[in-house]
């Protein structure tokens, strides 16, 4: 059996803010087809690392390669067009657009009809628009947001807004999905629904890389877990290995003082 190709290869990545090394010489691979999670205490540099992947921040050193293509110097939109699509830590549904329109906006990269075809209302453009709407509606059905489709997306509760944002990213059919704390602000029921969704997305063949605080969510669904502490990668393994790792326990709860007799 040939090993799975590498989706994301990160090597020697470094980023400093003033004197603080937020990401310190981090290297790892995310194999294609996995559901990989990145965890770490607050301030470990997880979000910074994420923002480096899509070039929202410029790294001080190191390389990021996506299915063999170096991402250095590419704009966020060009990276998205390569198939690396992300969501944000705070829900960022587009205000003033309905839930349906938000999801349709996620299909921007697959829209083929030229502007003039839409302007002159050509049949082909109309067909494409209808196909896109069908797909978007089907996805909204699947995540239980059908009744909300014509409401302003930002008028929804936070949990639903995060679902809209996730749907918007998924419908673009990315090769790899980057999720920045998808469970933040969700209640238990919403988190359980999210877990089912992530597993379904992963099962459909999409590589998923998720930054998450919610340990039980991560341990329940991830194939591999990476642990970041103070900008350094301190562990990389299966959920079971991570749960038994001393360095991880120390980073999260601190080391117990040695017992003196």
């Amino acid at each position, binding site marked *: 059996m040939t090993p799975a190709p590498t989706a994301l290869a990160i090597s020697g990545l470094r980023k400093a803010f003033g004197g603080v090394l937020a990401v310190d010489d981090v290297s790892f691979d995310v194999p294609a087809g996995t559901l990989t999670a990145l965890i770490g205490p607050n301030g470990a540099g997880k979000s910074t690392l994420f923002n480096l992947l899509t070039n929202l921040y410029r790294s001080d050193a190191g390389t990021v390669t996506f299915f063999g293509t170096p991402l250095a110097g590419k*704009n966020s939109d060009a990276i998205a067009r390569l198939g690396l699509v992300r969501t944000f830590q705070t829900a960022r549904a*587009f205000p003033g657009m309905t839930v349906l329109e938000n999801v349709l906006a996620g299909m921007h*990269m697959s829209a083929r009809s030229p502007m003039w075809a839409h302007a*002159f209302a050509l049949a082909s453009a109309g067909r494409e628009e209808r196909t*896109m709407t069908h797909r978007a509606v089907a996805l909204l059905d699947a995540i239980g947001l059908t009744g909300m489709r014509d409401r302003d997306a930002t008028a929804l509760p936070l949990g639903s807004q995060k679902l809209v944002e996730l749907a918007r990213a998924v419908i673009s059919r990315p090769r790899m999905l980057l999720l920045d704390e998808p469970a933040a602000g969700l209640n238990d029921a919403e988190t359980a629904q999210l877990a089912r969704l992530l597993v379904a997305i992963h099962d459909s063949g999409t590589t998923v890389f998720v930054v998450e605080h919610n340990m039980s969510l991560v341990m329940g669904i991830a194939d591999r877990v990476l642990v970041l502490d103070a900008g350094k990668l301190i562990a990389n393994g299966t959920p079971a290995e991570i749960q038994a790792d001393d360095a991880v326990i120390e980073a999260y709860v601190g080391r117990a003082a040695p017992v003196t007799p």
Partner: protein
Amino acid sequence: MDAALAITIGGLVQGSVFALVAIGFALVFRVTGTVNLAQGAFVVLGALTTYSFEQTFGWPAALAALAALGVAAVIGYLVAVFIFAPGLRRLPPSGMVMLTGGLLTLFEGAALLVWGSQPYQLPPFSGYQPVSIGGAKIPTQAFWDIGITAVVVAALWYVLQRTTFGKALRACAENPNAATLMGIDVERVRVFSYTAAAVLGALSGIAIGPVVSLQFDGGRFFTVYGFISVAIGGMGSFAGALLGGLGIGVLQQLGAAYVSSIFATTLAIGLLIVVLVWRPNGLFGRGARREDNRAAAAHPLGVRTRIDPRTARSAFITGAVVVVLLPLVLGGGALSSLSIAGIVFIAVMGLDVLMGFAGQISLGHAAFVALGGYGAAIATVRYHMPPLAGIVVGLIASLACAVVLSLITVRLRGIYMALATLAFGLLVDSLAVGLSELTGGPSGLTGVPHFSIFGFTFADARANYYLVWGIALVVFVLLANLLRSDFGRALRAIRTDQTAALALGIDVPRYKLYAFLISAACASLAGSLYAYYFQFLSPDMVSTPRSLEYVTMLVIGGEGSLAGPLLGVLLLVILPTAIQPLNQAKTLFAGIVLVGGLLLLPQGILGVITAAVARKERRTTEAAAPPGSVPT
């Protein structure tokens, strides 16, 4: 040599007044992050009230000047409390630029009613006898003006550096939230800075009143030059404002003397554009402040409630039928106003694509109307091309300028984008006046033919009406189709959250360029039709104040929906011609509409209508649903 010295001193006098205006700009910008386009209005107010107290009431000069400063303080304070401060609480920075633009229009309209349209000049403070220095005769007013500026600068420095109030003011400038937490009444500091800027403006007017004559709409000139000074110096920097003002004053006088008085303005604006692009923070500027992507882009303006597509379609069909049938019942005068409205509607639809959908503020839309208008007029009058070719010439010129402007402003956003378009508009204004060989200069270009095609000439009122509205309907339908598709969604995504738009693979600069090109094309087409309709074109018809009118129509009608511009256009074009007394106070009316619309109807008239329709639809659904069932 004497001439050069005299010109330089003249430039310093002019420049010291620009510097005072610029310091007022810098003060308001430092404390509130707002470019106060109404600053120049206080210059005119100061000069004209002094004139009235002195000449009409016969008060001594010093008393008249003091009283005028008092009037400016009271008016500045009232504007600050009732318009400016509420605006700061409700509007994003780009909305504030429009609000202060509306204030400038409002002041001009009010000054027109009070003082009429003739120019006024104040007597010099200490007689007409000049002082002779090194062979050059220098008017005594020069010493007064430079002295006043020096005293103001010294006083300002003392207040900012040495008093507790100055510290509070600087704290508000650095970080208003932290200042509030420290117990500083930010609102009071804002009101104070606006009032102080108003008094500074009036003082500049009193100082320059004996040097140049001023009339009701002179405020624009000082707003423009004060703004150029402060933008070149650095938006929030007092030293930059002072040096920028003096530099621009000297440059303008030297340019006028040795190059051409008409191109002196072009020179200054050219310099401004170079600085805006090369160093957006100015030569002495500090880092840009409060340029949070999302705060600047996500403005609360625009129609939020959606109309049901079927309702929208039937409204459109009804409207189209009304447009077709109106000439059967209306006479020539009414048809002519409606034709003008149709032309303006085409231009404002274009502006809506750029502002309402893509969220890019343009204060230079009239420049593209001018390019289309002059392109068509010059092609047909000077080169005897057929009218259709004239439209194409205008379109090529507009699109070429739009591409260049878009490329050099691609990194600018929010208010800097608004300011760059404003500067471009002013540049085109000055060229329309300056290139008189081609454009006919300030008096305009006559002898433009009516539009004609395939041997048919659109000569009478009815033919022109159908020409204009036929084109308007086609543009409306094409844009409506386009904006309903992926393109429209991409623009709206860019408007509210550029980072999230990029993350979906939307090529933001490219889509902004498309929006800009579409808006320029609509404006250009409207400009060509304007020239053919009037068979005449003058700079007034297509200059920067028109840009503000287009913005007014868009905002009051309702951004982000093509029907909004129609309501705005009908309100501001048809109403003043229909109600005669309103016609005299047209400028004042436009100013009040823009200011009131921004503060009270952020979604425009269309927003009010759609909200009402949505409420009614909800009630009908609820009434129709059997009790106990859940309406969906």
